[in-house]
């Protein structure tokens, strides 16, 4: 890692501007072709269960209450109360003042192995002082979060203050230390171009992020196929350069099993099968889980279920 840049803004800027350009139409076309893969039968069963295990079950609303978070925790551990073969999800994701409730609820429900991810650094806008962002992160970790989903400062990125963006990520990563893994949210909908997505991905990885994440889920477009495609290329190429595997998390707009399976195809054919694991790929979603459960029921029983057969929490 240290031989790619020397810590100066000049060196960072040079590295990022030397990255190869992305042709938007070519990238969109390749992503669209991969979306035509037809996943059936045993491979579909496998993919559905993997997708469930990759879900970061999320609630990030101003109206969140302890009651809501407890219900989410129960769902996370046991998505289908009538079918114990359904795996638990990858994590639950909440605001940092709900972390304690979440952690306790998970532990009480038999979900000790399910991490709590907290959004931090003045999520979703990222518009606050560094002191606030640092406190935000510290609170989350103290309350039991073992994953931090931070947002980058898009204003700084778009106005060219790349060193600032780098330093912020570095600072939050240092706070996480060994206690938490760090996901860096790029908010690709605000970055707009795929060239920016590529640059921001590398910036986040160079600064020490463990995961790069597409979006806060509060801005559209979010985790579109071309964006995830470019990010998967970034982690693939970064691994070839450094030997370090960074994870990818699309979030926002992934609502159906079909959407989730398309994401898994992208992972499989762009980054490679090593990334088909919750330690390297997560899906930030809420409504998706029930659709995965319904599709799972359909595969199991042979007919389409109704939404009455999955829980609304």
């Amino acid at each position, binding site marked *: 890692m240290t031989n790619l840049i020397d810590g100066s803004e000049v060196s960072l800027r040079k590295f990022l501007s030397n990255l*190869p*350009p*992305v*042709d938007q*139409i*070519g*990238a969109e*076309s*390749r992503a669209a072709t991969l979306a*035509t*893969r*037809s*996943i*059936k*039968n*045993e*491979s*579909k069963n*496998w*993919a559905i269960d993997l997708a469930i295990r990759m879900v970061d079950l999320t609630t990030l609303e101003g109206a969140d209450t302890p009651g809501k978070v407890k219900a989410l925790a129960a769902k996370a551990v046991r998505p289908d109360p009538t079918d114990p073969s359904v795996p638990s999800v990858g994590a639950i994701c909440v605001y940092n003042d709900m972390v304690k409730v979440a952690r306790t609820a998970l532990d009480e429900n038999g979900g000790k192995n399910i991490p709590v991810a907290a959004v931090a650094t003045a999520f979703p806008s990222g518009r606050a002082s560094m002191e606030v962002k640092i406190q935000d992160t510290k609170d989350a970790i103290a309350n039991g979060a073992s994953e931090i989903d931070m947002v980058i400062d898009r204003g700084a990125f778009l106005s060219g203050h790349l060193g600032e963006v780098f330093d912020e990520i570095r600072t939050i990563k240092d706070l996480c230390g060994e206690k938490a893994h760090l996901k860096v949210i790029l908010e690709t909908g605000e970055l707009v171009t795929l060239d920016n997505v590529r640059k921001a991905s590398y910036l986040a990885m160079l600064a020490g992020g463990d995961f790069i994440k597409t979006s806060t889920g509060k801005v559209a477009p979010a985790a579109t196929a071309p964006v995830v495609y470019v990010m998967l*290329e970034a982690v693939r190429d970064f691994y070839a350069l450094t030997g370090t595997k960074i994870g990818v998390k699309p979030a926002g707009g992934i609502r159906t099993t079909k959407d989730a399976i398309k994401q*898994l*195809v992208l992972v*499989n*054919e762009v980054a490679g*099968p*090593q990334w*088909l*694991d919750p330690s390297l790929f997560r899906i930030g979603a809420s409504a998706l889980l029930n659709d995965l459960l319904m599709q799972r029921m359909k595969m199991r029983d042979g007919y389409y279920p109704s939404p009455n057969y999955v829980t609304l929490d």
Partner: protein
Amino acid sequence: MNNFEYAPAPESTAIVDIKSEYGLFINGKFVAPKSGKRFETINPATQEVLAKVAYANESDVNLAVSAARNAFTKTWSKMPAAERGKYLFRIARILQERAREFAVLETLDNGKPIRESRDTDIPLAAAHFFYHAGWADKLEHAGVGNNPKPYGVAGQIIPWNFPMLMLAWKIAPALATGNTVVLKPAETTPLTALLFAEVCQQADLPAGVVNIVTGDGTTGSFIVNHPGIDKIAFTGSTGVGKAIAKAVAGTKKSVTLELGGKAANIVYEDAPIDEAVEGIVNGIFFNQGHVCCAGSRLLVQENIQDELIEKLKRRMSLIRVGNPLDKNTDLGAINSASQLARIKEIADSGDLEGAQRWSPACNLPTKGFWYPPTIFTGVSQSHRVAKEEIFGPVLSVLTFRTPAEAIEKANNTQYGLSAGVWTDKGSKILWTAQRLRAGVIWANTFNKFDPTSPFGGYKESGWGREGGRHGLAGYLKAGN
């Protein structure tokens, strides 16, 4: 745990209803061949016989040409142009309705992946008819004077690589401009043309306007040499194209030819490299490389060669070769035993002449005709694999140092059909395009086709263009 093997996802063939044998489509009806002969067409992925089709001999061709002549004189040339256009609109719409059926049939008869016939071949064919339908009553804007006239009866001979699409490229402009047609599909891929005859019947196209005669090269020569043919349109090998040009010398026949190619795909150091890899793969492995405009020579700037080849090899190992009817198949079957033999022969010369061959590991099926996606590195201009059209999934990789050298090598061929240019710099795209002697130039993309976009080659890649306003000129002469 990390095992995302895609289970088979075959498209059902229940939608097609292949008859056990077919006649010739002459004067609006299917009729038994005067030759009394039939020949088989097989599925190249399994070698199973699909059907027996009729063999047209000289008498059959005579009948077809007479039917076309009659239809021209009595019906088609007298019909108001707008009404002609409406028949073509009908045909386009019916093709859209029956698109899935055509796609499955095309894959069965040709061996190409269902994804390609479904997403590329058939939609483009329908679009071609739709586009040309709108020209029928606007020919004063075609650029052939303000009262252009059709030639009369067009004899059209098409290849096996894009059977239905090539049929559309031929019949749509011919009919739109007021000509009638005798068309011979390729020997190994007659079925979608015969299904198209049914579409003509459903559209109520007047009898004799379109005639489909199945047969072989000899059938084709009867068409070419027939005195009742006013215009010849041929797509196929350069060798046969030259023979046609020679045969019609001294006659009044108008000829357009769309022949072979050995296109250079130029990748500059400042290319968007991941998309360039996709473009290279698409350029040579789309349709198993059975493409006249295939990017069969990769010209990569020497200073990015290693990185590009490594990415290319990794990408090639993702190519899924197998059952063309499986929706996840990327590379289908080679169309025939003879084509497979030809590919092998030229590719093997690459080994003999000292180039380095590489293919990803592939599980090729035991029945049928198959060839793995292959690249040769260390190729120079004088190698056979750099000069001769292989018409298969084999890419030859050469290098260059400067833009001028890229141009020189790209143009150093008797062909001139197409070329690719990959760079992020706009002015370099335009500079390169200006200097390439090729009829179709793709910049930062490849193998893109559209009915509005003229297609055709320089030098020995042929005469004339198909598609767009320019393509109409092949079927019109100046009136008074």
